[in-house]
C-alpha cells in the first residue's frame, strides 16, 4: 500500500472543523450533518427549500479543497491505491450500504455517536470492522 505520513495534529484539527460544521448545522437548520443524508436528499428532494439547503452544503463541501489550497498553497492529496474497476465496485457497494444502513462515517460515526444513538454506535462498529477485514483480505490477496 502507498505509505502516508502520520499527522496527528492536522487530523485532530481537521476533525475539530468537521465537528464544528456538524454543530453549526444542528444549531441553524436542526439537521444531522451526514454526507449520505445530504446527497441522498438531493437525489430525491422533498421540496424546493429542501433541495436548496442541501445543494448549498454540497457546494460548500466541494469548495473545501479550493479554500484549503488558497490557505496552504497546495491541494489536499488524493492518492488512490486501487484500479478504476475497484473504485466502481467500491462506490456502488458504499451507495447500497449507506442507503440501507441509513448513514455513513459522518452521520453515524460522528453525529450519531455524539447523540449516543444505539443504532449509530452499532453501525459504526460494524462498518469499521468490515472495512478492516476487507483491507486485510485485499492486502493478503495482493501479497503485501
Amino acid at each position, binding site marked *: *500500500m502507498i505509505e502516508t505520513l502520520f499527522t496527528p495534529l492536522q487530523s485532530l484539527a*481537521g*476533525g475539530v472543523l*468537521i465537528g*464544528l460544521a456538524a*454543530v*453549526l448545522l444542528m*444549531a*441553524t*437548520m436542526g439537521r444531522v450533518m*451526514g*454526507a449520505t443524508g*445530504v*446527497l441522498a436528499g438531493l*437525489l430525491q428532494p422533498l421540496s424546493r427549500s429542501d433541495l436548496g439547503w442541501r445543494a*448549498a452544503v454540497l457546494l*460548500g*463541501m466541494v*469548495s*473545501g*479543497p479550493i*479554500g*484549503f489550497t488558497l490557505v496552504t498553497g497546495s491541494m*489536499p492529496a*488524493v*492518492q*488512490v*491505491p486501487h484500479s*478504476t474497476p475497484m*473504485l*466502481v*465496485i467500491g*462506490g456502488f457497494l*458504499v*451507495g*447500497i*450500504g*449507506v*442507503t*440501507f*444502513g*441509513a448513514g455513513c*462515517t*459522518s452521520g453515524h460515526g*460522528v453525529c450519531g455517536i*455524539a*447523540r449516543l*444513538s*444505539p*443504532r449509530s454506535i452499532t453501525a459504526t462498529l460494524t*462498518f*469499521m*470492522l*468490515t*472495512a*478492516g477485514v476487507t*483491507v*486485510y483480505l*485485499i*492486502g493478503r490477496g495482493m501479497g503485501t
Partner: protein
Amino acid sequence: MRLITCYIIGLVFGLGISLSGMANPAKVLNFFDVAGSWDPSLAFVMAGALIVTFVGYRLVLKRHAPLLAADFQLPKRRDLDLSLIGGATVFGVGWGIAGFCPGGALPALGTGNSDVVVFVAALVAGILAAKRVQSGWRKRAGMPA
C-alpha cells in the same frame, strides 16, 4: 441567509476533510492496514470531531428550536434491525475496497481528481439502486413508496 449559512457550513466541513486527510483514500486505507503501512491519523479525526459534537450538540439541543428552521429533526429510531446492520456491513466492505466514504469523497470532488468523479458516480448509482429496492419492498408491504 439560510443558503449562505449552509454554504459556509459545507465549506467548514470540506476544509476539515481536506486538512484531516479523509479525502485521501491511501490515508484512510492505511488506518485499517494495521499489519502493513499503518497510519493511525483517522482516529485523531474521529476524536477531534467527537469532542466538538459531544459538547456542542448538548449546548445546541438545550434550545427550543434551531435558529433558521422550525424544529430539530433528529433520527428517533433506537431499535437495531437487519437493514441497519446489513447496510453497515456492505458499506464497510465498499469503503475497504475504495478507500472513500461519502463524507470524504464529496469534498474531494473539489480537487478535480477524475478518480473521485468515478467513485461518486458509482456511489450515486448504488444509492439510486438501493432506493428502488427499498420502495419496491414498501409497495409490497402495502406502504406508500
